[in-house]
């Protein structure tokens, strides 16, 4: 058992013990092993180094290794937790875990926020949303007048500003009771073109369809999709 693991680690840098990965995620040990089969095929598709690079990721996602897409780029960056420019098996399992149907909404909301916060400032800015919107329209060959785009962006801001309006009301009525909120608002009022994580959470709670991309039902059936994992199983007797 120990020998197998170290042999695999040499071929697959960053490979972690499936039992440990299973204990840290919503996957069972068998599911982690099935994921390893998937990982092996993706990570060897361009360079056989046991790691997934950007081209291999693009190839797996789009069947086209040269296709660039700002969302896929951002997702790749989020998978690459150690910022090495490549995704190892541990990164792969931990990131896919967020998409598991049984994982908490909290984790999904958080991941989605980081996905849309393209430059990682901790805020989703209006111009980031505009950039993403334009990228989507371009990709789908859809065209919209600029005013329509601005109207769509305004609507997003209106949804988020509602929180501030509530605070504003409180501040106006009882400034003595909420002095810290007073400060918060002053800081925030200049920047109502940004969405922070709490505004995002509120927004998502009112629009739950926003999280649908954060769940992959396929992850529940992963052992039937990649049954060959039993031939390479590192683990002897495991309760499934």
């Amino acid at each position: 058992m120990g020998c197998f693991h170290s042999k695999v680690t040499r071929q697959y840098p960053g490979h972690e013990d499936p039992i440990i990965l299973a204990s840290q995620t919503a996957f069972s040990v068998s599911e982690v092993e099935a994921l390893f089969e998937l990982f092996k095929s993706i990570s060897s598709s361009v360079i056989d180094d046991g790691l997934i690079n950007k081209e291999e990721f693009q190839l797996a996602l789009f069947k086209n290794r040269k296709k660039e897409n700002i969302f896929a780029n951002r997702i790749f960056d989020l998978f690459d937790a150690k910022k090495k420019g490549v995704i190892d098996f541990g990164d792969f399992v931990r990131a896919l875990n967020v998409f598991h149907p049984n994982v908490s909404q909290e984790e999904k909301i958080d991941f989605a926020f980081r996905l849309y916060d393209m430059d990682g400032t901790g805020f989703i800015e209006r111009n980031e949303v505009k950039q993403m919107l334009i990228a989507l329209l371009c990709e789908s060959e859809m065209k919209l007048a600029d005013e329509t785009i601005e109207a769509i962006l305004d609507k997003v801001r209106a949804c988020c500003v509602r929180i501030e309006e509530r605070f504003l009301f409180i501040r106006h009525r009882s400034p003595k009771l909420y002095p810290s909120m007073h400060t918060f608002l002053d800081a925030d009022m200049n920047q109502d073109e940004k969405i922070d994580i709490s505004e995002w959470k509120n927004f998502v709670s009112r629009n739950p369809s926003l999280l649908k991309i954060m769940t992959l039902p396929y992850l529940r059936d992963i052992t039937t999709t990649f049954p060959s994992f039993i031939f390479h199983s590192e683990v002897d007797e495991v309760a499934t």
Partner: protein
Amino acid sequence: MLYRNIYRGEFKFPKWTSLELRRFISRLLDTNPETRITIDEIMKDPWFKNGYKEVKVQPLDFEMIEEPQSNVRLNAFDLISFSSGCDLSGLFNDVDFFTQREQFISAEKPWKIIERTRDEVDKMGNVKVISTSESGIRLEHQGSNLVIAIDIHPLTEKLVVVVVNRRELNAESSDEIWIGKLKPSLSDLVYNSESDIAVDSE
């Protein structure tokens, strides 16, 4: 352990199973695909035939049950999430079946889009309408497992986004039917923003 048993075809029957049932199960769990029971043989098996009633099965419309919020307008993030880059199911794609999604904007009313689709499908002959609703239509191809699901979401007062999802076991007939025939026949429904854009100085 379970997977090892599956692979080796090792199993034990509970005491209450009849001889016919045991024979049937053994033929189902045959690890050799050449000798394993086929669908036709299943239909003829004595245990299976006993009390069997034929049921017409609807093809799955892949997790796209009609949502009650079909009147709610899409917001910026809904739109953004249509990007293929946001859809990780591509990682699992060519294993079981092929799915493809595309969308276009239309200035037509949903009922008109659905009616036109129905008309074009009727002309095609080999594609059938399985179901319709106020905001969508489901189609099935008679020669393959191709299912096409069209859903219409309001975007602005005048505009809607039409989302077309296709699913089947291989891409060829899907491309031929959608890209080759149905999509071009509906191309006049696609919104052309050029005629609406005011000239601006930038």
